[in-house]
């Protein structure tokens, strides 16, 4: 049963303009930071880039 709903709103975003990432990063009121792949017509969650270390 759904007891409460809240509106998850955008707080900020940056675009990482690097060929390795090319990712739109958003922060939102649900405490999440997400990376988005916007290279296709439909934005989707980006894959975590592999760490080079």
């Amino acid at each position, binding site marked *: *049963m759904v*007891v409460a709903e809240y*509106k*998850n*709103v*955008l707080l900020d975003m940056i675009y990482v303009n690097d060929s390795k990432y090319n990712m*739109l990063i958003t922060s939102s009121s649900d405490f999440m930071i997400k990376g988005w792949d*916007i290279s296709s017509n439909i934005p989707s969650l980006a894959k975590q880039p592999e760490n080079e270390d």
Partner: protein
Amino acid sequence: MAINIDKYILGFFKDAFEQNNSELSFNEFMSQGMRHLKSWQRELKHREEKMQQCLSRLFAEADSGRKGVITWNQFNSMLIEKGLNLKSLRNQEPGNTALMKPIAVSGFSAKHNNPIQKMVNLGSKIAMFTEESNQIDFYNVDGSATNLKPLILSQQSLTV
């Protein structure tokens, strides 16, 4: 930081000038200003010090001859001149200035229902969202339509 001399405050200054043979020394001017600008920026830190700086600047602008005394005509003329300068600045269209020119894009325009909170440059596109929104919209910078669909954050529900 500036002091807004409205008609009410101007009236007090005019009375003060009239009671002092139409001229005020620096100290008299400061004293009148401090006395009648009681409602100025009440929440400001170091308010009195900043008010003194503003009044002092006003006095110096009116006292062009550096005599340490200004007349009502000098003070009033200075205010009129400042007002006219401000008005001309406000009326100046950004496109007419040398430093600010409109970007020549072919009809880029997007109307939203809420104030725009953030825009970022994606290279050939712009991403933006409005206040209290969970949706990012995309636009091509040349004004043409983009195929990229809006990015919508999912809403969370608290369930039991």
